[in-house]
């Protein structure tokens, strides 16, 4: 059965691996939809770009929930990464449509990531 699975990622550190996990289900013939909250996507790399393209090939999608993002984060996610844009209402709709919901990783951090994270 082709389940629909929704990944919700709010913590910066978990975006890359969340994408890999979402792809893992997409290649298992599940519809895999991922929503990024608050955070800027990691720097682009061939590996991550290939993963995103593959998810889309498998009829999944990667969304930026832009109303949770500041302007710089939103622009980076939409322009540099060309993520699809979603509202919180869209997220709710998709959650209701999906068979499985994966709150991936830790909640969002209140602190700004220090430079050492780079």
């Amino acid at each position, binding site marked *: *059965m082709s*389940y629909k*699975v929704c990944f919700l990622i709010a913590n910066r*550190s*978990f975006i890359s*691996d*969340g994408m*890999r*996990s979402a*792809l*893992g*289900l997409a*290649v*298992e013939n*599940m519809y895999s939809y991922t929503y990024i909250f608050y955070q800027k996507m990691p720097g682009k790399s061939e590996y991550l770009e290939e993963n995103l393209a593959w998810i889309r090939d498998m009829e999944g999608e990667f969304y930026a929930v832009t109303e949770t993002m500041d302007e710089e984060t939103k622009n980076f996610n939409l322009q540099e990464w060309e993520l699809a844009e979603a509202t919180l209402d869209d997220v709710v709709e998709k959650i209701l449509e999906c068979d*499985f*919901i*994966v*709150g*991936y*990783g*830790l909640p969002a951090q209140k602190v700004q990531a220090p430079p050492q994270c780079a």
Partner: protein
Amino acid sequence: MSKDPDKLGIFVTSPIHINELVKIVEAAYRKGKKVKIFFTFKSTHLVVHPDFQKLRNRIPEEDLAICVAAFACEGYEPEYHNMGLTEKQMRTQAFHGELIEEVGKYFVL
């Protein structure tokens, strides 16, 4: 693999819920249920947590696995740091797909 209504699937993505995980597994077994667990990304650090052995010893080999790629990405040497996990328990994200197909109930920690 068909759905097993008596099997609980747990997808572990974060490293902070080991106490709850052990208690949930114990509670499930007390109720005569089965569990199937997959650890990915930062949760693979739990392999070296003392309580992880309670899970490894309790859960059948085919129902407990970690993502070996994530384990290696986190700096471990799978061959030496596996803490008794077998080759069959060093899996890919496909195990998560199998888990979803197989379990009656599912949640994420």
